[in-house]
Each structure stands twice: as C-alpha cells, then as structure tokens.
C-alpha cells in the first residue's frame, strides 16, 4: 500500500485516496473548435509510461482535494506531490 504525501494533510495511506489518471492531460478550452482527432485524443488516448509519471490522486477520504503525484510506475517511488494549482517541475 502506497504512502502518499498530501500537500494539505501530510502522509496518508493509499486507501484514503482515489486514483485519477494522467495529470498532464489538458482539457481543450470551452467553445473552441477542435477536430475529431484532437477531441478523441483528449477523451480516450493515454500514455502508459514505465518510470516517472505525473498523475492525479483525489484525497477522497481526507481533505477532498485533487493532488498531483509524481510517481515511478514500476517502482512506486514517489518523488514529489503537488497541490492542484501548484506548478509542476
């Protein structure tokens, strides 16, 4: 079970969190004309990298904040965690 540092609450066990997928995906702006392909990429296409990955976790049984977690997908090492609005390196 992972031990995740919530920037709002501190170290908490994984079972307080819900996984939220790739944190690098950016939603297309509202009212913007975009192609089917671009929209398709946003809705469905995700990379599944081995190694460092920036992902979203929701501290669902804690402060209910979405946070960004930089994690190694093969070793589970967590390098850094960020608040939702914090700039990532």
């Amino acid at each position, binding site marked *: *079970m992972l*031990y995740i540092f919530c920037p709002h609450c501190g170290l908490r066990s994984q079972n307080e969190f819900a996984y939220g997928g790739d944190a690098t995906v950016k939603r297309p702006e509202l009212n913007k004309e975009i192609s*089917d392909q671009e*929209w398709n990429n946003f809705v469905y296409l995700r990379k599944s990298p081995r190694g460092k990955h920036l992902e979203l976790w929701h501290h669902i049984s804690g402060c*209910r*904040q979405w946070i960004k977690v930089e994690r190694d997908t093969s070793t589970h090492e*967590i390098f850094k965690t960020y608040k*939702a609005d914090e700039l990532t390196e």
Partner: protein
Amino acid sequence: MSQDFRLDNIGMVNRNKKISFTFNGKKYFGYEGDTIASALIANGVHLVGRSFKYHRPRGFFGVGVDEPYAILQLERNNERDPNIRATEQEIFEGLEVKSVNCWPSVNFDIGAINNFLKMFFPAGFYYKTFMWPPSFWYKIYEPFIRMAAGFGEASIKHDKERYEHKYEYCDLLITGSGPSGLASAYAAAKNGARVILAEDKPRYGGSLLTSDVNIGNQTGAEWSEKIITELKSMSNVIVKNRSQVFGYYDHNMLVMSERISDHLPKTQKYLPKQRLWYIRAKEVLISSGSIERPLVFGNNDTPGVMLSSAAKEYIKVYGVLVGKKPLIFTNNDSGYETAIEFKKNGVNPLILDTRKEPSSDIITEAKNLGIEIKYSYVVVAAKGYKKVKSADIAKISDNKKDLSNIENIECDCICVSGFWTPSIHLASQSGNKSEFNEKIDAFIPKKSKQKENTIGSANGKFTLEETINEAFNKGYEVSNKITENNNKVSIPTVVEKKSTEHDKFWCVPLPKGKSYKRFLDFQNDVAVTDIELALREGFRSIEHVKRYTTLGMATDQGKTSNLNGLQLVSDIENKVVPQVGHTTFRPPYTPVSIGAIVGREVGKHSKPTRKSPMHEWHEKNNAVFVDAGVWLRPRYYKQGNETLFEASKREAKNVRKNVGVCDVTTLGKIDVKGPDAAEFLNRVYTNAWLKLPVGKARYGVMLREDGIVMDDGTTTRISENHYHMTTTTAQAANVLSHLEYYLQLVWPELNVNVVSTTEQWAGAAIAGPNSRALLMKLFPNTDVSNEALPFMGYKEADLFGIPAKIYRISFSGELAYEVNVESDYGNFMWEKIIEVGKEFQIQAYGTEALSTLRIEMGHVAGSELDGRTIPHDASLEGLVSKKKDFIGKRSLSRSAFTKPDREKIVGVVPLDKTTSIPEGSYIVKDPKAKLPNPKLGHVSASCWSVEYDNPFSLAIIKDGKNMIGQKLFAMSPLKNKTIPVEIVSSHYVDPEGKRVRA
C-alpha cells in the same frame, strides 16, 4: 499409552499439564507446549500423510514454517481447518486432527499406486497427459486430478470465528526474535525507538533455545529470557509471539498475521482467532534467520529422514527423541551439534561426514564424547517404506563421483544437514536484489531497496559473535536515525564453539544399476530426474523449469528445495548458481487464512449500512427493505398477507388517486455556492442555467466527457449565489468528485465551492392529486397555491415550528412536492405528514411503487442511464443546449451518436395485456430467426401500470422513434419466454404532463 520417545529431564514443555488429543481417530497425549508434531513423535508416530503426486508415505521433515510434509486437517468447534502444519500447531485438550491426501487411510492408501506408475507422472505431466480430447476434461481428467491432488478440505460452512485487522505504526519493525532480533530490538528500544518485535513461534529466542552458547555469562536461553522480559516491560515496545510477518509491500508496509487463539481449545467469545496487522514501519530489520538445507539421496523422503536442526530442537525444546538409532548425514559442523545432543541424552549416533578431514572445536567435542564418525561417507539410500529401517551407506571418492564400500546399516532416523539457507524472502519482497555468496553457497540480500536491513543468519552471518555485534550496531544505528538519542548499550561477550567450512556437496550420485528416487521438492514430489528431464526438453530459464516441474510451487514455497534445485540445474548446465539465478519470492512467506485477510468485513459488515432518520417508523410500519447502494430503503409496506406485487400496486394506485409519501432522504444533495455558481452549473449541465431565477428549480442532465449521461436531477436556486443540487442515490459520491475535479483542476478560476449535504437533510416526497390540500394543512401560514408555488417552484416554510424547504418537483408524474427538513427533525416531519394526511387517505409508498410510477410516466432512471446512453437515447435531447458549451458536448457530434437509427427509449406493451415482460429481454423482429437473432434493443424496466391495469415496460431500441406502433417480440432466453408486444410511446400516462402542473 506411554511416550516411548519422551526424555525425562530436558525440554520446555509443561510436564505438569497433560493434554489429550486425537490423530486419525486415535487418542494420544502430550504436554502443554507441545506441537502436534512433537507430541506424535513422542508417541513414536512418524507416518502422518501421503505425498502430493505419488502418495508416498510422509512423516516430519522440519520443526517449523519450512515443514513440507506434515500438513494436516484440524477439526475444532465443528469447523474444519485445512492444511495446518503439524510442526506449528500447538496441541490443546480435545484437539482432533487427521491426515489428508490419502484414501481410505494413511496406512493403506490406494493412490500409492501412482508410486508404481511414476513413468506416467514425469515433469510436466499436467501438460502432457491431460490434453486430448477436450471432452475428456470435464468427465475424466478434472475429477481425476481433483481426487488425486490437493491436501485438506476447506469447510463450506460460514466461518463463525472472528478475525480482526489492526493498523500500527512504528519506528522499527523486527521480524524474528532469534539472537539478531533480540539484540537489535534491545539496542533500538534502549535508544528510545518505538519497536515491534515479531516472532512466529510461541517461544522467543530462535536458535538461542537450542544452541550451546554463552552470552554475557548466561546460556543463550537464559539471556533471551532476560532480554525478552525487559523488552515486554518497556512502553515503547510491542512484542508479539505466534506472529508471522509474511509480506513486505510498497512504502514500508508490512503485513503480519497473529495467531491469537489457534492454540486454545475454544475461541473465547471476545477474542479473535487471528489478527492481521498492517504495519507501516519507518525502518525494518529482517532477522528471520535461516533454514537448514537438506541433502539429496535415494528415497530421501522416507519418514524418519529429517533436518538435523529439527532433531536437535525436538530434543531441546520438546524433550523428544526422533529416533533411538540415529544416523547423522552432514556436509558441515551443524550435524555434529545434533549428534552431541543425542549423545548427551543417552543415544549413540553415527555421523557420516561428506568431508575428508575436517577439524574444529565441535568435531573435537564429538570425538571426545566417543561419537562414531565416518569421513568421506554418504547415505546412498534410505530403506524402509513407512519409516526408515536402515540405510545403504558408502564411501565417496574425493571427486564426489564414485561410490565404494556400499553397506547396509540399521538406523531408525536419518538427520541431514546440508548447511544453511538464509531466509531472504522478506528482503526480496521489498525489492532488494539478492546476490550469491560463494562462501555460504546461498543468496543474501544486497543493497537496501526500501528502509530494510537484513541481519544475523538471514544475512549470511553464521557465527553468534558476528550476529550479536551486527545486531547491536544495526539496532542502534537505525534507531538513532529516528530518535537521535545517542544512547548506546554495551555489547555482551559471546562464547561459542568454532566451526569449520562446509562441503560444497549436496546430491549423492546413484550407485550403478540403481534408480532410487532422489527428491528435491518434498511436497510436490519433484525428483532429480524431473529436473534432468525438463532440461533435456529444452527448458532453460529457472522460472520455466520451476513451472514445468512444479519445483518450489507447493505450500511451503520451496523453503527447503529451491537451492538444491538451483545447484542441480547449474551442475547439469555447467554453470555457477548465480548464472542460473533464483525465482521470484512473492508474499505470503507462509500461508495466510482467508478469514484473516477478510477480517471483520463479512456479511453486513462488508460495507456500512446507512439508514434515514425515518427508518424506525418504516420498521414499525412493516416496511420490507431493499439495498440501495449502502442505504436501506423501504421497498414496500406490507399490509396483512400482501405480496410485493399487491402492496406496490396498492401504494402506487393510492398516489394516482389520493396522496402518498415516500422517503427520499437518500437522494444525493450538494450545496453549490459562490459568485460563479451559475456559470459552473452552465458548464456542468447540458441545458441553460444562467437565467434560472432565485426560488426556482430546474431539471438537469450532466454528461461525462465521452458524451454518456452521468447523472440527472433537479437543482434549485436558493439565493443569488447558492444552489441546492440533487443527484441520484447511486451517483452522489461520483458527482461530487466530478464537480471537485473541474473546480480544482480544470476551471480553478471559477469562484465556487461544493459540499455534500446529503446527510444534513431528511426528505419526504408528497405526491398525488390531494398533495396540495395536504400541504395547505401542513403549512397553514404559507401560500402553496399553484400561482404562489408553481411547478418547479421553491419556498421556505414553517412546519409546526420547524424550518422546512418545499420543492415542487415530481418524479411520479403527479402533482407533487418534496419537503426537506434538517435530518434531526426528519422523523417529526414524517409523523406530521402521516398524521395530517390521514383525512386525505395518505399512504407511505416504497421504491417499488416509486418505480411503477416513474416507469409508466416514461421518466428515466438508473436502468436507462446505465453508462451507455447519451441524452438522445433517453429522449432528453430537448435538454441539450445548442448554444453553449458544456462537459461532453463535443462528443455528441461523433458519428456513432448522430446516426439516424440511433437507439431511443420507447414503451412496450404485451399484446395480450397480461404477460409481464422480464427486464433484460431482447426486442426482436422475428423470434424464429437464425441465431444469433439480431436484436433491436433491450427492455430496461418493467412494471404493472396502475393507470391502465396491464403490464408496461420501457425499452431502448434501435431507431425507436420510428418503431412506435410496430408489433415486435420480447424474448427472454433466461426465462424461456417469447412475448408478442406493441411498441408505444415511453410516456404512457399523461403524455402532456398536465398533472404535475395542476
């Protein structure tokens, strides 16, 4: 019955407490502190089971977790406990155990014929034998495999025992209380660290209990007793026996299973059977020791052949002799220690040492005691079927290839020692890559991967002095990183006998003309020939050899067999062991009961049960409840002998005719607040929200980004910047997360906050033509006329002194209101509604009547919004704004969602107006069409229309709009029904929606 093999003056069992138990129906006795193994051996019983594949006789091989043979079935409190290890299970009064994997009895086992058919059971026989024809699987192969294989039989009854989970945090977790565990725990505890020390056996001390050593002028056993007593008295230390740390998971999470009452006659009422500990440790010291390595020779699986360290422990801990004519077969000094214990207790052993001219303190002591020793000697084969009777021994040449002077000597047990294998399982599970150490011919952990360090013999330290020094230093070092107390205790002096190097020799060659089975894996019956065959057939990777031969895949996970297997593969392949590598160690280290894993999360405890504030009233009024997510909701209120069908019909009819009240507390409620709340809702919902006036409600549909409907519900503007959103019961939590996601990550510039208020409000839906009349009596000071409170209107009012909120919304399609009060007043509100409603013939109605009402109105719910439908499919396209953008809008223009024959919701009525259509039925054109019959869609919900008194269903079918009026068929292969139906509008009752606006 006398215990012929019990010694009088040695051992740690309680001689004052005799305990009787039965094995295979026969009564035996032992003493408190005995295991089943020690008690049976004391009684001269060595035959306890049959092997997995060949059904060869099985005895005892070890004395603890590594035991591959003595797997028994335990019966307690009328429950069966399969696959317990006789070497670990302590006896208690009335214990009943029996052998497994044998029929009709352990003494005469028909399956043993496999032993004579072994040409049919070579490596990979599972893959070779049970292949063709496929039809043989079901009738012949599977029953055969099931009957022949496997050990104990699990109980199929509900397990009434109690299992618990516990979460614990500590500075330092130490896994094993041998010399390294005790020393490091002591050093760390004295330095102020919060320590958990776990020991899998009942007694603390590990090898100190059996070895002839001295620490700080005390015997090993005395020293361990002193240390453990002091540790137990310290408030920063938790000491646990009968507790196995079996798994090392990510981020220093370790899991330990504590056997709390497995050794007690009957579980105490408030004492669990086992407890699973989830331990998050800042640092971990792995002090799990080492397991003696067997030697491989002919028939080395015969009962009576066992590890020499086990024989020693049976003597020193249990006061039990495993034999009276022991043969010690060793490649190192450990065998001598066992021989010395036999000798000291009046038994004359014979030592066969594979080494030519070894010399050390221990060997000298054995010689001085007059023990007979034969150097460069091996056991060629054990003789005897159900118990060792004699052994063929031989002189072995210096190159270890040739045997000479073969002779048969009498013996009743063969104690083997092939040196020691560190238990690196936990270190390996933590991600630590191990390395092969040629000095000890075994793998030891390399660089720490997580916060773990391995110490003592688990780290390949085989002298006590090294172990004690390393453990005191490590215990101090890792604790000081955390506490920074700099409190170092002094290291005691150690006295031990010096030993010399082991022989790099494990597998005795076969004499000419003999084909004895030489076993590597004792539980899965994997012999030398199986490995040879696998390699001949081209398997090279050790992982493949393992799976093909099943070496190390039994419940003991190869604790005694892996290294000998690797050694053999490297010898045949002319490689060194590290080139072959070892297979992956995975948790659990020892088997864990399913009950312990599940813990208290069984039955009703597997999830919370949520009840509305009106729950007690429902109970008193004969409500029959149904699970709605985690909520309990009244399904119907039973009157007399009513069935579900009769009751729900009565309740629904009463709503259409008079007035009904339904508990809608479970609906999800979310407060949406802030200056940008309207803009936010406008982006979340498909319809327009910017112009909703204060005091008005609106029905809304929200989508996922892929265009699928996520949820629906009404949201009311309470004040300028305050909205009250409702969601379906099932989606409440998901919708809140969804909203938080967009507010926190996508549109953080919006000044809006959301919070769940589901539990803050109790809700009652009042529906039916009499509902306004009732409301006028409930709220005499509030104008609830159609003009003052129109459809989709909202008012705050006073309910007999209680503040209430009235929403004029309707799910039933009737003139209806939803009244909300603070949860604590829920019951008061409910009782007032029932009391005042009497004169209007009010009746409470449950979810079944609610369903009926919404289905015949064509209102969609979860069975239509099932994660596959877009607004169009549910006839909600009128709510999709063309002007503004919203979540998921771009997806709606995808070609699959815009094709002309897209599915749409319709109504379905059976032509005979009497046959109910099963939910889930297919709608087809031709019921006799060739299979697979092309289906137009499926029936999503069915009811008995109370308006028309005939069955009515909703269905979502292809090109539904143009299907209205057609005669089709509803087919339910599950219920074997084909029903001719007519497709009608989904709005079966009041299609113009006059009633809700009345």
